């Protein structure tokens, strides 16, 4: 029983992390059809900025966390302006490959300026303590992570349903031109989407850094890969789908780790991806794919 609760919390926190990242991918994709491979590098950038600022300026964790969020938002918005604006109207493959290239560039910039080895940044490690909830041993980080993710999703939900810009973003996912025909500036909507994706990446970054205690060029790549798969399963471009897919993958992964014999632990992710592939045989466009009734528009 205790074990089950523990694993459940585990799955919840894994899922929370994937959901945060997947949401960041989905919001950008839904509005401009860009498969943002560079999202992981936004997270890594947050990690490095924590390392740098934490060493030079301050050790105050609150300020540092704020700084990580800010850094991720800034770099995400900047990437859109510098790299993705030129391919905004291009076909999906062009955008995807551009993002892929941006991702490689950033990884190697980290490699050049930092080092191939992880750079220590232990300022947020304190978030990860062992707690006893009665007989159950849990990590405080898992609880923070789950709660923060739920709050972030709720906040995002409020933003998307209450604010003009949020409503415009949802509308833009359907018909971007019509949003412009309502007087909203295209650049603002797109920048807004990237800012949100950066904010979500920053949040994920804080938790990843609290767990790892170090930044490395590839630190964002693996979680983003999983988040991509989460997006595809949930239905690419669907925000609820991203959340659902993220948590689904978290639970599958923990389930695999629990069910597979110890010696097969390394295969957990492979097994998860394989299962996901099976989901796609059943629904090629994902579980919550946006309804596509092509109607007469052929």
């Amino acid at each position, binding site marked *: 029983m205790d074990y089950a609760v523990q694993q459940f919390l585990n799955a919840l926190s894994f899922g929370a992390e994937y959901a945060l990242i997947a949401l960041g991918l989905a919001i950008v*994709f839904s509005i401009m059809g860009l*498969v943002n491979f560079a999202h992981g590098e936004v997270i890594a950038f947050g990690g490095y900025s924590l390392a740098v600022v934490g060493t030079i300026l301050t050790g105050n964790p609150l300020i540092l966390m704020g700084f990580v969020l800010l850094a991720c938002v800034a770099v995400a918005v900047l990437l859109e302006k510098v*790299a993705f604006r*030129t*391919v905004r109207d*291009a*076909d*999906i*493959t*062009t955008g*995807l*490959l*551009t993002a*892929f*290239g*941006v*991702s*490689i*560039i*950033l*990884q*190697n*910039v*980290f*490699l*050049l300026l930092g*080092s*191939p080895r992880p750079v220590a940044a232990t300022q947020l490690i304190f978030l990860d303590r062992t707690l006893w909830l009665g007989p159950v041993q849990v990590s405080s980080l898992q609880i923070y992570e789950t709660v923060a993710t739920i709050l972030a999703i709720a906040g995002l939900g409020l933003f998307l349903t209450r604010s003009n810009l949020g409503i415009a973003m949802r509308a833009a996912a359907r018909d971007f031109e019509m949003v412009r025909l309502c007087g909203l500036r295209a650049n603002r909507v797109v920048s807004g989407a990237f800012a949100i994706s950066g904010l979500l990446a920053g949040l994920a970054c804080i938790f990843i850094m609290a767990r790892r205690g170090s930044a490395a*060029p590839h630190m964002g*790549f693996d979680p983003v*890969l999983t988040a*991509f*798969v989460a*997006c*595809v399963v949930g239905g*690419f471009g669907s925000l609820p789908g991203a959340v659902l897919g993220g948590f689904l993958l978290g639970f599958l992964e923990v389930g695999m780790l629990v069910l597979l014999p110890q010696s*097969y632990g*390394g*295969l957990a*992710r*492979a097994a998860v*991806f*394989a299962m*996901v*592939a099976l989901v*796609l*045989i059943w629904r*090629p*466009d*994902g579980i919550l794919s946006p309804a596509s009734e092509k109607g007469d528009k*052929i």
Partner: protein
Amino acid sequence: MTRLNASQRRGLIGALLLSLLILLIVGLYALWGESWQARVLYAAFVNLIVVIGLQTFMGNANFAVFSHAAFMGIAAYAAAICVTPVAMKAVSLPDAPWGLNAFEMSPLASALVALGITGTLGLLTGLFMSRLTGVGVTIVSIAILVIVHSIFLHRTDIFKGNQALFGIPRIFGLTHVTVLAIVAIFAARLFRESAVGLRLRAAADDEIGARAMGVDVHRARLVAWVVSTLFFAAAGIAYAFFLGTISARPFYFNFVFLTVAMLILGGLRSVSGAVFGTLLITIGLELVRWLETGPTLAGVKLPQMLGLSGLLLGVVIVAVMAFRPHGLMGNREIEDLVLPRKGTS
């Protein structure tokens, strides 16, 4: 086989021209090259086969896929395990299950087994991939890459993981891979101009239009997917047979970055583009690698710059996408540069 049509005849001319280019490079090496360059050239030609294989699916169907390193790895391991003598496997794979270390095969049989296994996996994954749409194809191809890689890493009893599987007989030399590269060029050009290649390109331009013209899009994609895995298999076999030792590490993302950048630079849509992109990036990387190690230039010792080659690849991809999204060659093939088409005004 019916008579070749005009486009197919031009395709043969183009393939011939590209082959001459390959032979020219090999000839230059034979005359003036230094022996260490054989290895560079060999690697370049293996990459060339991969990039051409990538072109057959990615270029004709216009989907971005990243699973080629996995198929190449599968073929390399399969060929290696088959061809390595039993005596050697007792040392290199002492714990292999299912009697994998208790048999050995001729190089030809090993290659055929490797092609067969890879092709079968290509068919199985293809049945599934050909039905997915847009982004799904890319993401699932990445999932395939990750799955295969984790299996390589995990089953150390078969694949040795990040350690080297050594003792593979070194059967191939530069001649073999040159011949293989030329065969690949011809095969890819003929495929591009074949009925399936044509239908696939039509569907990439306008899927609905193609279906209205009777094109079975899923089938065309499936054929192209399997054909491209066979190219990757050939490259994997050549890789194992030349190096004599393989490990899982090269069959992962870095290799994917490299080959995709090569294809993009030259231009997805054209086989000639694949060839030019591979050659250009190979030359560029040799220069950059030299810089990376911190050479002494005019008496100044430059700092070591790890990551410069990766940075260059990324910049190439982004710059090509921003300024020349169809690569250097676009829709053109080499013969279009040499022989203008009749009837073009």
